[in-house]
């Protein structure tokens, strides 16, 4: 008992949480900056939060070990609850990019919607920190904590426009359903803990491998099922996608963009770590479960998207469909499939945030004009934004030479390699269906007479910068994906 302090000191390793620690400290400092700033002044908070993300990015990249996730000399801390391996670092970079692009497009948007409230930025930083804990957590406890830090900040952000009924509704709906799904996740964790006696992911995997009799235990299977509900809810996979369109439509547009990229990637990171490492022994079971859900998710997302006229809602269904494509990689669960998911998350971050950045610029106050009709003739009146939107839509469709194509290519290649040829075929067919609703936006932009002159669309520097960054990202990942794919391959388990 005398040397408890020594044990604690050795156990805790702040290096393992350095990126999120930096982010949280910046977040707390910014909270104080906000509250001591004059009302309605938020631009400096936005700049400072960008600085926070840059610093965190540098700290994150410094921990990359070229030898790969399995053999790298990663930072591990808190009694093995947190591990900053390449897998975590790759996802951290994805979160930081998503948060950065979101913040860039937010400042002028908040002014236009007359909600210049500085707390917005610290909340995004906290969300990102939560996402980082999910990606680097190797204990179900850390993963749960990360998930909740992420979710609670997001509930607030979704309901951020507190006098706007749509935003209220989005926040409340997200909160009720999110808390509900958390209950299932927790119960699953409790059951797995009951079976294995530990909450450490790697240890769960070992114990299950050493005691095959546990694999057929009802409690193990129930625990797996309940945990997957919690994760599938967060990645918006069918049939747990019901909240997605409502929340995505009602939330402030930059937050919708962020939600579709950052938290979704975080949920995938935790899902992968828990299932591929912890529940490796049950792979047959969860593969067959996810096979069905992947198909269902792709079909629901793509088919319902066809009937949408509101673009935010259409992109919400499209994001459900994309979660389905990424799940295909998880079903394959081989090197190409898993690193394909990592690549996919990065590619999707660029193309989806880019598309949303254009919606941010094109909206009027209140955003009732973000419909297909509201984009009639947009492409000729606003040539740069029209071309940029077309690029992002082509990428979302998966047309070469964009990021969307290479990402889908890796995922489906992984599925074929693992023998899931039918799954790959269904995925490709679904991509073909998706052409319809993505192309329809382009048809409206270029082949309809402009009803308006789009004079209200101002080219705000932040949003334009995020669009440019997203375009560069989309083409970089589309034309020379090799380097990033190598990184992704080093990052998987």
């Amino acid at each position, binding site marked *: 008992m005398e040397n408890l302090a020594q044990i604690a000191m050795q156990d805790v390793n702040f290096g393992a949480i350095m990126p999120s620690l930096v982010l949280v400290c910046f977040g707390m400092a910014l909270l104080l900056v906000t509250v001591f700033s004059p009302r309605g002044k938020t631009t400096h908070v936005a700049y400072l939060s960008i600085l926070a993300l840059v610093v965190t990015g540098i700290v994150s990249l410094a921990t990359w070990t070229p030898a790969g996730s399995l053999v790298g000399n990663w930072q591990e801390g808190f009694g093995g609850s947190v591990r900053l391996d390449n897998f975590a670092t790759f996802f951290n970079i994805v979160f930081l990019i998503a948060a950065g692009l979101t913040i860039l497009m937010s400042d002028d948007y908040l002014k236009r919607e007359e909600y210049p409230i500085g707390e917005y930025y610290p909340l995004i930083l906290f969300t990102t920190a939560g996402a980082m804990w999910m990606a680097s957590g190797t204990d179900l*406890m850390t993963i*749960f*904590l990360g998930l*909740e830090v992420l979710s*609670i900040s997001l*509930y*607030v952000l979704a*309901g951020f426009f*507190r*006098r706007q*009924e*749509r935003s*209220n*509704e*989005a*926040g*409340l*709906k997200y*909160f*009720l359903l999110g*808390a*509900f799904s*958390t*209950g299932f996740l*927790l*119960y699953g*964790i*409790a*059951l797995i*803990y*009951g079976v294995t*006696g*530990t*909450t450490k992911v790697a240890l769960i995997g070992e114990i299950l491998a050493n005691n095959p009799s546990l694999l057929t235990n009802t409690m193990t299977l129930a625990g797996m099922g309940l945990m997957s509900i919690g994760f599938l809810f967060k990645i918006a996979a069918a049939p747990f996608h019901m909240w997605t*369109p*409502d929340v995505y*439509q*009602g939330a402030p547009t930059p937050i919708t963009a962020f939600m579709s990229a950052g938290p979704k990637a975080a949920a995938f990171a935790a899902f992968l770590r828990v299932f591929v490492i912890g529940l490796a022994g049950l792979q047959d079971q969860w593969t067959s479960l996810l096979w069905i859900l992947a198909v269902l998710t792709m079909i629901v997302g793509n088919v*319902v998207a066809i*009937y*949408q006229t509101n673009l935010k*809602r259409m992109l919400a269904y499209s994001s459900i469909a994309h979660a389905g494509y990424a799940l295909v990689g998880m079903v394959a669960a081989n090197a190409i499939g898993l690193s394909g998911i990592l690549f996919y998350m990065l590619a999707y971050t660029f193309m989806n945030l880019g598309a949303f950045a254009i919606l941010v610029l094109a909206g009027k106050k209140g955003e009732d004009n973000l419909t297909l009709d509201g984009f009639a003739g947009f492409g000729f009146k606003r040539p740069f934004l029209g071309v940029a939107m077309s690029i992002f839509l082509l990428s979302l469709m998966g047309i070469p030479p964009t990021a969307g194509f290479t990402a889908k290519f890796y995922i489906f290649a992984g599925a074929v390699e693992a023998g899931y040829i039918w799954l790959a075929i269904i995925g490709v067919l679904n991509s073909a269906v998706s052409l319809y609703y993505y192309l329809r936006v382009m048809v409206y932009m270029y082949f309809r007479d402009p009803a308006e002159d789009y004079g209200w669309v101002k080219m705000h520097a932040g949003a334009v910068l995020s669009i440019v960054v997203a375009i560069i990202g989309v083409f970089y990942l589309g034309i020379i994906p090799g380097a990033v794919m190598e990184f992704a391959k080093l990052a998987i388990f």
Partner: protein
Amino acid sequence: MSPTVYHYLTLSAILFSMGTIGVLTRRNAIVIFMCIELMLNAVNLSFIALSRHLGNLDGQIFVFFVMAVAAAEAAVGLALMITFFRNRESIEVDDINLLKW
């Protein structure tokens, strides 16, 4: 006969189911939230019973975190409900109906 871990787990499962059914059938947002809390506390009961049964403390530590998280969630949830109520004069979930497909 003193209660064993199975009794606690059964009780926890019953409480969890009650919470789940409550969430699905109730119409008032606050009552729904209370049902969610019931689910979380059912899980806490499981954790404590299992922790005692297995003889390690992980489960109890988990309960601390669940409690802290539930409190934060309650704070945010109540705040969201208040803003919603201010705009709509109601917190019935049937009135959460602006957004539909």
